[in-house]
């Protein structure tokens, strides 16, 4: 083993030995060169490699050296052209008698250089970081050549780069982790799985899009996907993720405002989509890394069952507060453990959508409720039920049903004659119509932000409806126009 100081003294010694041509000294020199871990070589003023170089040199630069070979040729296809050109200039300066060695050495472009290695196709495979030091060799006070020491510093450089990356990554991960710790692992896992699935759908659509019409459809899907991501991440309070998605959203909106969309407009979207995917991947890795930790403090089944309730309770609380409403959430008849595993997601999605819908549209503000002779605090209730053949859940609320009222009025006017003939048939017909209209996209809300919000809910509802259909589930609605509405969703037990 030799260190930097050793090799410097060897270089000095070599300088001395090179000046003396005695056989004894030559043998000593060969022994020294053979023992060195660093690469040591000597070049003349034509930059040609002289016969004496250390055995380890070829290994370090991974090339065979021939006597008289140009030193510069060692760098061909190994370093970019600018470094190659700078090296030639630097070597010329090193051979100028009137220039101070130390000053010129400050310009050494090979002080730390990345050596690139390629496969037989010329494609980059790996890199080494090498340090080249140059010393003038004087003979009769004139520069006769340069002694060059080459050290492989790949390990040091890689380590410091890795350290830098780890430090950066650790800061980011710490921030994420602090944010993630309050989220129950099953919910986080579900969030990641659902997001990944949606991501795959978007990706598939991007690949299939061919014309402007499809581009517009993709934009709409993208916005819906973004809203869903924001809403799901908000539910879990994943602030770092919400921030990133909002950035993405503003990018998508900016492009969506263009009159004509071309495929090139999707470039920033695809890049950002890649970043979001990477973020999801990183969160997943982080989650898995802390799996042991979460398993150690793994919640009991009973606790896990309560997660869905807690998520909904948070939603009720946050949304009511945001909208200046007061809602009491009652879930005593809701048994989370009765939800079949395969239905957990669809139940949660439906509950979230219905709760958001009810709070946004149906519950009145306390003053309005008082004026309508109602308790100022609204009541939202959920319950589960099951038989041998099906599992179901209900959501009831005592808010107003403006849209349904309007529909009812209209429907009753249109079907007055029929009502006389067959009241029950008309009631069924009305029920179906109400459900259809209730879940139809609309922007009939009081403000733009609400309009956007409602669009989001209805888009979510469309997706949830598809999922319900996929599971062969059914939805039924019972209501009175003034103060009561009950949704019943039933799913066949598989």
């Amino acid at each position, binding site marked *: 083993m030799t260190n930097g100081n050793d090799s410097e003294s060897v270089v000095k010694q070599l300088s001395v030995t090179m000046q003396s041509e005695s056989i004894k000294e030559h043998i000593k020199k060969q022994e020294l060169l053979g023992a060195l871990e660093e690469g040591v070589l000597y070049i003349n003023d034509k930059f040609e490699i002289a016969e004496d170089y250390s055995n380890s040199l070829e290994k370090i630069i991974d090339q065979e050296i021939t006597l008289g070979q140009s030193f510069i040729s060692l760098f061909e*296809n190994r*370093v*970019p*052209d*600018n470094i190659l*050109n700078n090296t030639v200039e630097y070597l010329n300066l090193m051979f100028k008698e009137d220039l101070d060695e130390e000053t010129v050495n400050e310009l050494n472009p090979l002080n730390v250089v990345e050596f*690139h290695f*390629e496969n037989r*196709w*010329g*494609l*980059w495979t790996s*890199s080494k970081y090498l340090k080249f030091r140059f010393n003038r060799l004087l003979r009769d006070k004139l520069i006769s050549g340069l002694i060059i020491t080459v050290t492989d510093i790949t390990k040091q450089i890689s380590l410091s780069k890795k350290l830098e990356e780890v430090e950066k990554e650790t800061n980011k991960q710490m921030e994420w982790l602090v944010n993630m710790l309050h989220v129950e692992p099953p919910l986080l896992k579900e969030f990641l799985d659902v997001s990944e699935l949606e991501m795959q759908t978007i*990706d598939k659509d*991007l*690949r299939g*899009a*061919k014309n402007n019409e499809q*581009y517009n459809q*993709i934009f709409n899907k993208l916005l819906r996907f973004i809203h869903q991501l924001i809403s799901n991440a908000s539910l879990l309070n994943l602030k770092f993720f919400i921030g990133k998605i909002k950035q993405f959203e503003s990018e998508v909106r900016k492009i969506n405002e263009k009159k004509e969309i071309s*495929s*090139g407009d*999707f*470039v*920033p979207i*695809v*890049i950002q*989509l*890649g970043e979001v*995917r*990477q973020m999801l991947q990183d969160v997943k890795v982080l989650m898995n890394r802390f799996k042991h930790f979460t398993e150690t403090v793994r919640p009991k089944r009973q606790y896990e069952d309560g997660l869905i309730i807690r998520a909904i309770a948070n939603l009720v609380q946050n949304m009511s507060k945001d909208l200046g409403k007061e809602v009491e959430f009652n879930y005593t008849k809701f048994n989370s453990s009765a939800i079949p595993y395969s239905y957990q997601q669809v139940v949660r999605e439906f509950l979230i959508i219905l709760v958001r819908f009810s709070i946004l549209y149906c519950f009145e503000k306390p003053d309005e409720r008082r004026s309508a002779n109602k308790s100022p605090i609204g009541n939202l209730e959920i319950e589960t039920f099951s038989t041998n053949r099906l599992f179901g859940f209900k959501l009831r609320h005592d808010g107003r049903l403006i849209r349904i009222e309007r529909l009812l009025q209209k429907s009753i006017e249109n079907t007055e004659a029929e009502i006389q003939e067959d009241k029950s048939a008309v009631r069924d017909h009305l029920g179906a119509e109400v459900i259809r209209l209730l879940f139809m996209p609309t922007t009939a809300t009081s403000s733009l932000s609400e309009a956007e919000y409602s669009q989001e809910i209805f888009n979510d509802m469309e997706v949830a409806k598809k999922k319900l259909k996929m599971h062969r589930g059914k939805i039924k609605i019972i209501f009175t126009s003034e103060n009561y509405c009950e949704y019943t969703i039933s799913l066949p037990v598989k």
Partner: protein
Amino acid sequence: MNETDLHFFIDSTVNYFEEVTSEKASAGIPYMKDEEPVVLEYTGIIGISGKRKGSIYVTTSEKMLSSIAKLILGIEEIGKEDIKDLVGEIANTISGNVRQAYGSDFMISVPVVVEGKAKDIKLPDNIQSFVIPITWKEHKSFLVVCLE
């Protein structure tokens, strides 16, 4: 890789077709490459190293290359060698543009031409690759960009 890089590669490829054939090519929406191979009958690959590392390849069908070769050479009978030369030239042109745009901090390899539908083209695992579908006339080709 950033937006400018991706735009640059798309533009230089699309421009090549227009300059050489006087017929515009259109780029589709780029997407992130996954495990699914993106390889057609002829592929021209360029390696990039230096400040940033990666690979770029353009993969096309024999029919497309044959049509372009007919236009360029003005002959009806196109041999395999002409086709191979052409895919090499496409890659070379992209390579030249990259060299011009990225400067001397980068090392750009001589294009490698792969004939036949390889299983896939090996790209660095730790770098995200993007696929840009290119349509010229009724022919489809792909530009795959994988750059740090």
